[in-house]
């Protein structure tokens, strides 16, 4: 027994010393320090993002009274509903159209701002960012007054030109147009500022070389600007697509999904079904339906971005 103790003494000490050295090494490693520094944020995200996400998946697998597990039953039910497919179609139209025009307008305006002399540029950048800085719930209320069914400021102005009155929010097509328009107004500044930053990082030598080669304005954009901005365009479009698909406030304030459900998108319909209709599992299923669509889009776009990053 005593021999064993004598024999074990140095081994244990050595093991302890090894352990403390490795712990010290681990703590000394940059990655460990980084992990501990980011831990509060990781915990915050786990609490505020991961937990609700997992919980909503759990809710989506319950029956209406939330007492029975039904697996994919809610999704199978949704797939049989015409209104659901109408909402899917409208969400896609809403998101794709809005993101396309936000990108286009952002791109054009970024060029204009880029060409303003540096001295006055800051003012313009600030002013153009205003729509993006105002909380959308507030700015959309102002739009609601402009579109107001009975007292529209737009209709009042158009009446001087003998146009209208336009039923901005009461006609199916005009209502869709209006909600997309407000989304573009709100989101285009974000694209503008991202594209402006990208434009500033394109070396002037490339344009000079293109000019020496005799490239015209369009060829400079097509062969120099766009290839240099591809990654930022892809990432901005993906980010905006996700946010636009999940939009709620603009549609909710302007039309509440009407007329005849023609402006409902995922979030507003999920609210209608889940909260107003007290069918929380079905509402959770509606809002989760967009996850695979966005995940697939994200995989393709990010794969393309990283491929180009590797090529570079």
């Amino acid at each position: 027994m005593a021999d064993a103790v004598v024999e074990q003494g140095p081994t244990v000490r050595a093991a302890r010393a090894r352990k403390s050295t490795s712990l010290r090494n681990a703590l000394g490693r940059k990655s460990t320090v980084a992990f501990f520094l980011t831990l509060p944020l990781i915990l915050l995200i786990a609490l505020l993002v991961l937990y609700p996400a997992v919980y909503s998946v759990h809710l989506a697998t319950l029956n209406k009274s939330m007492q029975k597990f039904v697996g994919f039953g809610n999704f199978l039910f949704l797939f049989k509903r015409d209104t659901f497919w109408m909402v899917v179609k409208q969400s896609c139209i809403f998101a794709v159209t809005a993101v396309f025009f936000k990108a286009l307008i952002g791109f054009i305006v970024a060029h204009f701002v880029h060409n303003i002399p540096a001295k006055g540029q800051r003012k313009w950048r600030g002013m153009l960012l205003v729509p993006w800085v105002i909380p959308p719930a507030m700015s959309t209320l102002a739009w609601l007054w402009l579109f107001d069914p009975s007292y529209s400021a737009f209709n009042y102005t158009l009446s001087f030109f003998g146009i209208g009155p336009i039923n901005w929010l009461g006609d199916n097509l005009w209502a869709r147009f209006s909600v997309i328009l407000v989304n573009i107004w709100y989101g285009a500044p974000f694209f503008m500022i991202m594209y402006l930053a990208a434009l500033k990082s394109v070396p002037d030598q490339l344009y000079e070389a293109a000019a020496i080669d005799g490239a015209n304005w369009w060829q400079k954009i097509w062969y120099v600007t766009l290839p240099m901005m591809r990654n930022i365009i892809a990432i901005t479009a993906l980010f905006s697509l996700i946010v636009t698909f999940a939009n709620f406030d603009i549609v909710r304030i302007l039309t509440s999904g009407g007329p005849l459900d023609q402006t409902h998108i995922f979030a507003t319909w999920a609210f209608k079904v889940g909260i107003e209709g007290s069918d929380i599992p079905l509402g959770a299923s509606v809002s989760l339906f967009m996850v695979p669509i966005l995940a697939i889009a994200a995989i393709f776009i990010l794969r393309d971005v990283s491929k180009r990053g590797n090529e570079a």
Partner: protein
Amino acid sequence: MSRKTLTRRQFVAATAMSSAALITAPYVRGAYAAGKISIGFWDHWVPGANDASTTMVKAWGEKEKVEVSIDYITSNNNKIQLTVAAEAQAKSGHDILQMPTWWPHAYAESLEPVNDVMEPLIKQNGEVNGTTKYLGQAGGKWLAVPATPGSQIKGPCSRIDLMKKHAGIDVQEMYPAGAPAKADNWTMETFLKAAEACQKGGNPFGIGLGETTDSVDTAGAIFQSFGAELVNAKGDVTVKTDAVRQALEYYKKLIAFLPPDAPSWDDASNNKWLISGRGAMILNPPSAWAVARRDAPQVAEQCWTHGFPAGPKGRFAPFLPYFWGLWSFSKNKEAAKSLLTYLSQPASIEKFVAASGGYDLPAYANMTTLKTWAEEGPPKGTLYHYPNPNNHQTLSIAASPAPPKVAQQIYFQATLTKMALRYAQGEKMEATLAWAEGECEGFMRS
């Protein structure tokens, strides 16, 4: 180490002395000896109405030695519904929470039955109307107590002058202040003719065709007056019936006389329509009149709130009651029930009605002739017929008598207004009915 042992005799003596001391000691009752409760009230839009609730609850708390905390929760953008859903999910929150129309049924499993509160109240205040029973009871159990604050009838609020001028109808003669209604001729046909005349005269009726409650409630009352039910009380889908066809035909005619932007109206649009002086009538509680009294007095003094027109199957008016629900997870149910009883006493009801300027309606039969409604003005008596004092019309809610959980879906998906609008916009009758049938079948899920 010596240890003193306690003899049996000493133990008995000590116990007896301690008991005697405890029994004879003076009982000091603390300020909040009966514990705490919290109540979430609907945030009333009438200035000062919340103060009346606060005063009453505080007075009760002081009398009963209960510490009460009060929150006022707005119904704007369904905040109150979100709070109900969140508290039911978390099984935590207020002890008592005010909830609108369909919510007691939606969260029936999480609510404490309140038969012991309701039975004495009904004996004291009179029978409650059918809609309150339909929304507040399940299987003979009272799920919640009808709340006076926020409960309302969405009847016609007409412009006296414009109705006389365009339609030749004297609404004050039809619904005289202080006397029963003389409205036998006030039928759906008369209503349609008046709508046409007012539209031609440049003051159309302001009836929404949107998806918010005002539009749905109007559609509900019109459908019911034709006996049209999308789902019956047993839960059978009854969309393809003659009654539903008649209601749709009627609505199509009516829509032709409404403002062209009515499909995009929300619950504020009809109020604005009346207050701006553009409309001859809206279907709303007297909130629009009350705002007009402040902002457009010349309009307010021409407003008269009265009963709904009668259809072939009766005269129905939309009634939207609020309830006070007591959560089953409440930790002080006895105190909460005592507070609910207190808030439903005739004196409390009278204070609620007075503080809201007559907007709030009690659900009890004996409480529909309070002096507030007789005296409010201008013009004096404008609210006399608002609480249905002569039981002149059946108070109802859209989508009833379908089982409440199904009816809630019909109501919030605005199936009735959507049907009316689809048909009026040129869809074939059978296509509209087939669409509605499909929707209702979807609402049956449990």
